[in-house]
């Protein structure tokens, strides 16, 4: 009898241990934007997907969001350090890779945008980007009626409004989730690092993780990583939003997921390779007030360590994300 009871008790405990050992090694934080629970979410995502790829959003209907945010490059703008917009005008900043945005409360290199819904207003209205206005876009959409059915399905109203356009794009943006890299499979116990990757991971944890924090590979904070000021742009980052001198030269820490695809690097796209980035952390940093401890000293790595670190960074590439047709150019458009 006693044994039976012990066995009965033991089973769930054993099961608990079995599950316990498969517990992921790293936990994702809670999403900031959880639109997936709202009615019409799927239809809104579909509409946002179409709008993201539609140049109707720009003044002369030549530029879409995807012109600067290409799926194959993790939704960054490759080749151009400073993204091009309509009439070949050049913006002031490098288009960042877009992923896991449901976790980003604030957007842009300086955090100028404080809600994902409002993100699209910026490129639509920026004269160097899409050079249009939300009024113009909504007017065009309602004249063409091409999307009337889609607006109806998503919002119960076939007439576009600023609210509907912005909401559908932000819903689509939250579906740009990258969580299927080799790193992720190691963390959920379905794969293992090679010795080189493991060594690189340790170097990463020691020198980089305080800012490029797992599993998003950004703590989403604003920091100064010691880049010499680009005198042509004079971009002081977060300072331009808060007017707080402590924020001078601080920029939103970019994610390192899919990093080999999203070159050039930094807010002004000054570096073209990870080698250049590591050289910067090794001997290119300018020390300024307010820089974090992790960067108070040059990060000197042997050439073997550098190779290991890059080998680890390569495990953050997520082919599924880069080639998932659900995020790509819409087929029946």
């Amino acid at each position, binding site marked *: 009898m006693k044994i039976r009871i012990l066995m009965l008790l033991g089973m769930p405990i054993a099961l608990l241990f079995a599950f316990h050992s498969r517990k992921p090694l790293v936990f994702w934080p809670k999403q900031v934007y959880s639109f997936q629970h709202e009615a019409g979410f799927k239809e809104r995502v579909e509409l946002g997907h179409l709008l993201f790829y539609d140049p109707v959003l720009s003044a002369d209907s030549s530029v879409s969001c995807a012109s600067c945010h290409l799926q194959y490059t993790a939704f960054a703008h490759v080749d151009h350090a400073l993204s091009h917009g309509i009439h070949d005008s050049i913006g002031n900043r490098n288009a960042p890779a877009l992923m896991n945005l449901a976790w980003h409360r604030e957007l842009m290199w300086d955090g100028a945008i404080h809600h994902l819904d409002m993100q699209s*207003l910026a490129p639509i209205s920026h004269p160097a980007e899409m050079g249009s206005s939300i009024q113009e876009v909504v007017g065009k959409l309602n004249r063409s009626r091409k999307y009337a059915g889609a607006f109806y399905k998503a919002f119960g109203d076939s007439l576009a409004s*600023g609210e509907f356009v912005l909401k559908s794009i*932000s819903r689509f943006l939250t579906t740009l989730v990258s969580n299927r890299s080799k790193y992720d499979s190691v963390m959920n116990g379905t794969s293992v690092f090679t010795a080189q990757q493991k060594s690189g991971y340790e170097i990463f944890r020691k020198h980089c993780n305080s800012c490029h924090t797992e599993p998003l590979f950004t703590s989403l904070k604003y920091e100064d990583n010691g880049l010499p000021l680009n005198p042509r742009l004079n971009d002081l980052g977060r300072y331009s939003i808060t007017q707080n001198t402590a924020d001078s030269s601080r920029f939103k820490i970019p994610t390192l997921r899919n990093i080999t695809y999203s070159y050039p690097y930094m807010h002004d796209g000054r570096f073209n390779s990870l080698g250049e980035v590591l050289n910067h952390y090794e001997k290119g940093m300018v020390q300024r007030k307010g820089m974090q401890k992790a960067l108070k000293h040059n990060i000197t790595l042997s050439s073997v360590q550098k190779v290991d670190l890059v080998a680890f960074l390569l495990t953050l590439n997520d082919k599924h994300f880069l080639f998932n047709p659900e995020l790509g150019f819409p087929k029946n458009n």
Partner: protein
Amino acid sequence: MLAIVATAYAQQTPAQKPLRLKFQYTLDSGVVELGKEIESERGARKFRFTKIKQYVSNIALYLASRCVWRDSGGFYLVDAEDAASCQIAFNYPSNLVFDEISLVFGIDSTTHAAGVMGGALDPLNGMYWSWQSGYINLKIEGEMLDQQKSTALEYHIGGLGTAHEKRFGLAPGEDLTLDCDLNPLLEQALSANKTHLMSPGKQAIALSLAWMQSVRKQP
């Protein structure tokens, strides 16, 4: 049974009384009309305004400094170009006793930080900054005419710290007309040589306070 339904119905919709709130944009004592020249009395300056818009929200009625009723309508965009928008009408329970009305000029910080909304808050209304998040609580655009010269004026005032609550004495049955005098704000901006202000911050807060001083109940 019927009686119960009837009383329940009566309880849900007690008799209502209308209250009309009217906004009028003035320069000193002159009424501003968009597109028309107007002269200020004090500074003896001439202006022509092309756009005056402001948000008003959180309308509530007070008795002895305690809130006794709150409007559920939320947010109103008072646009000089659209006469209908310069009159807000709502109903309150006819047995309600109050001695003050309270309005918030602008958008509260919670709404300010929230996602996109429709109606009066739709960014289509041009009262949302695009380059950085945040509502513009007050927009004044036009020109100052100085002998031969015209100077463009553009004030987009918003961001944190620029929305303010203000209360006005009001008795049941009374309607309310508010004069919004542009002069104090313009005087303050122009004396600092500011013809444009399009971003949040200290200057926007200072001008929003000047605006609050110039909103008065019409006697």
